[in-house]
């Protein structure tokens, strides 16, 4: 089991109200799971809590990654174990070039296993495959990126940094259908390379292109229903009320 979330309850630090109200989730190695849910149901919170965002506090339950609890690990330690989160709205880092960040991160995660030259040519081919110009690598991280460029940039990072578990937080929002297809193909590629996936979305749209093993419907801080891809289409046809 790559990820096991047990009865996870969490809230924003300094607030009373629970956002995660007992989440249960198991992802086996190599699988792709989708979490669907309406806006404001706390899906992004789940992603942030798994990544260890200090803004949130776990009040009960556990998160196990490859059998070990990661609750006491800092975000960077979780990243070094092999967890990665792509952001719904990734942040701008002025003055830091995209490749500079990625090469720094790669060294932190994988050490010196490849030369600078190898890494750079790998980066260039990933960027071209996703339909971005090579100059993209020279731009400052997310600064002045269009919505689509930001999402593609996150995917480039995921492909390059090769996490064991990749959590994609609304990677599909704001993408037109061509970009969506391109991004989905890249995600399938990442899965084929051995990465397990947790895809968080509130549209079933992306599922048309994605190789998915399991779908969970997430409502009000809990997983309410789980099933195969058909569950997603049922939700689309009938709305989230089927899970309430």
């Amino acid at each position, binding site marked *: 089991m790559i990820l096991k979330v047990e009865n996870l309850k969490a809230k924003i630090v300094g607030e009373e109200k629970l956002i995660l109200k007992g989440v249960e989730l198991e992802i086996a190695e190599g699988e792709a799971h989708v979490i669907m849910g309406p806006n404001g149901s706390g899906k992004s919170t789940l992603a942030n809590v798994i*990544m260890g*965002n*200090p*803004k949130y506090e776990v009040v009960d339950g556990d998160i196990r990654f490859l059998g070990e609890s990661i609750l006491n690990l*800092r*975000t*960077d330690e*979780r*990243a*070094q174990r092999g967890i*990665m*989160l792509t*952001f719904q709205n*990734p*942040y*701008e*880092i*002025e*003055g*830091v070039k995209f490749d500079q*960040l990625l090469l*720094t*991160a790669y060294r*932190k*995660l994988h050490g010196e296993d490849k030369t600078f030259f190898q890494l750079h040519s790998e980066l260039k081919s990933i960027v071209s495959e996703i339909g971005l110009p090579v100059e993209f690598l020279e731009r*400052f991280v997310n600064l002045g990126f269009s919505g689509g460029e930001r999402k593609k940039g996150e995917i480039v*990072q995921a492909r390059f*940094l090769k996490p064991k578990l990749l959590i994609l937080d609304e990677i599909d929002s704001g993408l037109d259908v061509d970009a969506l297809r391109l991004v989905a193909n890249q995600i399938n590629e990442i899965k084929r390379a051995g990465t397990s996936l947790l895809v968080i979305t509130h549209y079933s749209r992306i599922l048309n292109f994605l190789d998915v093993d399991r779908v969970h419907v997430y409502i009000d801080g809990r997983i309410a229903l789980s099933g195969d891809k058909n569950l997603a289409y049922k939700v689309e046809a009938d709305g989230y009320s089927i899970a309430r």
Partner: protein
Amino acid sequence: MELQKLLYELKKREEFDIKVNAKPAIKLPAGLNKKLVYEISKAKGEPDWMTQHRLRSFEIFEKWHDPTWGVDRSELELSKIVPYIKPDAKKTNTWDEVPEEIKQAFEKLGIPEAERKYLAGVGAQFDSEMVYKNIKEELKKLGVIFTDIETAVREYPDLLREYFMKLVPPTDNRYAALHGALWSGGTFLYVPKGVKVPLPLQSYFLFGNPGGGQFEHTVIIADEGSEVTYIEGCTAPKYDIVNLHIGTVEVYVKRGARLKYLTMQNWSKNMFNLEIKRAIAEEDAVMTWVSGSFGSYKTMVYPATILKGDNSVSENVSISFAGPGQHIDTGSKVIHIGRNTRSTVDARSISIGGGWSFYRGLLKITESAKGSKATVSCTGLMIDNKSKSDTVPIIEVHNSDSDVGHEAKIGRIKDEQIFYLMSRGLSELEAKSLIVKGFIQPVVQELPFEYAIELNRLVEMEVESSIG
């Protein structure tokens, strides 16, 4: 802080903490009086006009009131400053002739190596005087003069007199007057018409005595159509009493010339650093100031450009770094006089560990400067809640035919940015350090490669020692 990290930190500090045990040849006593000013002149064997200049400056100094703004100078007792410390070394153009202790200090700073690799000429000042000055033979043949002011007084008196303290006269302010009385060492650089100096020239100022004052003077003349980059670097070991630095820089950029003046200021944290830097640009000339202020206890420096000639350009890029206990009061001044003149100011500051950055700027577009264009941008980054950042940009426009843009921003590193970078495997410290490096990138990109590396290292060190 963990022990290992502390040791690492100390080790790195050591590299910058260069103490030199070189006995001076002359060390005049502390205290400010006319006799002392006269003795400095005598020790240098100056002609009468310079002696008179010093004495007149001193009289002006005595009449001037202290400015009521800027950093708190109550701890600066001018009467306790030792104004003139002549190193026991004659000025030479071969490192082998520089006394061993002094040479070693400059070697630790990487100066002779830098000279071999990527500089067209180097000057090295220890305490009050230059001990080394050398320029590539080819440039000498083209008529480039690169020496100290003392030599210029002797060998190029007419040229020097035409420019010396004309742009920053002793009447300018109290510290300009004091400087006029006590100046010692510094650089005289003349680049003849049309000569393009391919590599930067550098002067490095090192301070070796507690309680001393350094008052070097710099005059640069870039004659018509010439091009040159000049780098000024400075450092000093830390002592537990106050040191004083009042450097004055006068830059003359003639018609169509381009001059870039880079400063890397890394004085120790007991230094009062009160500098005056001013340039005048004639027709079609381009003046660029690139400044990094890292060290010192308290700094006041506002590089100024007077755009006198039509179509002249001024660029001013700066980064100030105020760490624990520091008050770094920096800024810029641009005065547009010629038509179609252009200027940009990009001033950035970082406050960390309780440091205080203050940006003070004046942009003045006079009535005659029709069709001028200017932008001022000042940005402050505060790394924590203890630190302070202020900006006071003043803009005066006296004609209706000019275009002025202005932006001021003070911000903090956002928790979300740190979380984003940490989710890519960087530690909190590495995340902050990367954000800071990104913030100063506009300055870094103006620097020669080796200096850019050095600057990044300095920033890492400062961020680490303040946060870690």
